[in-house]
């Protein structure tokens, strides 16, 4: 078990990194070419709205005061007003966040289920033609741009065969009750299928290769030899004895994967017009909606940083050999 001190120091590190990333973003948005007023106040706002925003963000004050106000606002999750939607940025990003989370988690589960099984199988079949063929194929799936895989799937399954819708998360006019009610409708699942598959094609390579290499190590260890000598069948040895122990690094990779996938989903969400955080960020930057871009970026960064920390703790928890220090 990671001690209380380890957890406390990890949380300290998390807060430090969060603060640093937020500060970098603050400086980017205030010091980049173009006046900060222009970056935060849309000329189409009314005079009163402009005055209210100026006060709220302290845009008429010196930079350090603006910075203090920025941090205070951030702590209250007050991210300003979107130019384009004329709505609270916090509300907008939280509105699309579940979509990104659902897409990420489903594709990760699919990718890890397939990756772990295939990885264990390939490790077991080590040195055969199967291994020789599968490794280059897996490397190729990791080299293929996700949006290109998405485009091919879209062209074939959606436009050619008409099996799946070509984008979005729900059909126009579809009605549903609440978030949970929406997720389990056939309509939503049909929309979810192709983006999930696209992401899983890319994501399954890591758990597969990781599983394979740890399995190869574990299969050489004494307790596996013991199990073999006790006369257990080969498959029982592989699954019950070896695979269970090889899963540790894969579990850590899964937590890390959530963070990186939320950050990397940007292109796939755009290809499939999936109404998630990444697509919101792209649209915000395209329409120079600075407050929205900043809010979406901060939420993505927050998820990634928290997942990094969780993965780190998980790794310590699962592998007692890691020294409990810093």
């Amino acid at each position, binding site marked *: 078990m990671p001690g209380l001190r380890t957890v406390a120091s990890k949380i300290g590190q998390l807060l430090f*990194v969060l603060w640093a990333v937020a500060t970098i973003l603050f400086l980017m948005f205030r010091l980049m070419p173009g006046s900060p007023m222009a970056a935060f106040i849309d000329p189409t706002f009314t005079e009163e709205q402009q005055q209210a925003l100026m006060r709220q963000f302290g845009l008429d004050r010196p930079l350090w005061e603006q910075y203090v106000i920025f941090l205070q606002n951030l702590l209250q999750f007050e991210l300003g007003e979107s130019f384009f939607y004329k709505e609270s940025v916090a509300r907008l990003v939280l509105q699309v966040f579940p979509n990104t989370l659902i897409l990420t988690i489903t594709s990760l589960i699919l990718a890890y289920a397939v990756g772990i099984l295939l990885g264990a199988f390939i490790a077991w079949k080590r040195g055969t033609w199967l291994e020789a063929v599968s490794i280059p194929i897996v*490397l190729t799936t990791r*080299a293929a741009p996700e949006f290109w895989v998405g*485009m*091919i799937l879209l*062209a074939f399954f959606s436009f050619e065969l008409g099996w799946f819708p070509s984008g979005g998360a729900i059909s126009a006019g579809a009605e549903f009750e609440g978030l949970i009610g929406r997720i389990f409708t056939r309509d939503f699942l049909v929309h979810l299928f192709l983006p999930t598959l696209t992401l899983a094609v890319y994501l399954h390579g890591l758990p597969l290769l990781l599983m394979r290499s740890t399995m190869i190590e574990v299969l050489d260890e004494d307790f596996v030899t013991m199990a073999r000598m006790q006369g257990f069948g080969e498959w029982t040895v592989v699954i019950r004895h070896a695979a269970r122990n090889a899963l540790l690094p894969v579990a850590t990779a899964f937590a890390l994967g959530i963070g990186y996938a939320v950050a990397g989903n940007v292109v796939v969400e755009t290809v499939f017009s999936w109404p998630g955080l990444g697509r919101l960020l792209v649209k915000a930057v395209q329409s120079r909606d600075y407050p929205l871009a900043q809010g979406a970026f901060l939420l993505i960064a927050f998820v990634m940083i928290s997942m990094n920390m969780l993965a780190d703790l998980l790794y310590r928890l699962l592998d007692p050999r890691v020294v409990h220090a810093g």
Partner: protein
Amino acid sequence: MPVDVSLDARPSDRVSVLRRVGQLVPLRDPFAAVGLLIYFVWILVAIFADQIATYDPTEILYGADYNLVADKGPSREYLLGTTTLGRDVFSQLVYGSRSALLVGMVAAVMVVGIGTLVGLVSGYFGGAVDSILMRLADIAFGIPFLPFVIVLAAFLEPSVWNVVLAMALVLWRDTARVIRSQVLTLRNRAFVEAARVAGSSHWRILFIHIAPNIMPLAVLYGSIAVGWAILAEASVSFLGFGDPTAVSWGFMLQDAYASQALSRSAYHWFVPPGIAIVLVVVAGFFVGRGYEELLFPKLRE
């Protein structure tokens, strides 16, 4: 797992230095050989793009009947067909290799250069220098890369160099951490001790005695970084934040996507640029794998 690339020789030996340089080209590994071959072919394509391409990639083509040659399928005249704006897909593909290789190589050199330097200094000197550099690495690990490139693109002029800049600012972190941990194990070895006793300066020890030992590891990360850079550049161009005047594979895919090539089943247009990207990126992985087997021989057995 300790990575020891100087198993069989004293690192100060001249012979071993030569051998180490030899290790930089792990031709005996079939993967690495294939990877290097793919690189070689693409470099030739990029150099001789003028000769190979059948048209100017940005030229709008008109047929004998003075009509725009738009959305044509592959033919002898237009090897991979034409785009909606009447441009030759094959020629764009050939010219795209130039920006891809340029971005890939420059970004990889920068990422690995910065990462290696940080790792060497951090691991060797330790103490406050190490703490500061590793906190910086923590921060870099907290920046989501693709969103960062996109936000950067919002402020800077559209250019392929935005991706290189973003990579240099963020992605040195992985190389730095790995090199640092490697330097930590090398720092107290006998040959470093010997150099120290002999009166070598810190920088001499660092660059003459330690650096050559971590070279294969740096090249491993470099070969993977080439792939990342090309994928990142393609993604950014696809999202429309690239240089609209440069012909790149990502731009071709964006053009195809925006021109509804998908609904018209114009596979000849949007499949080839993706294959080109896959080939370059996978070549880096193959070369990297060659090093991995060299560095972690247990995997091969």
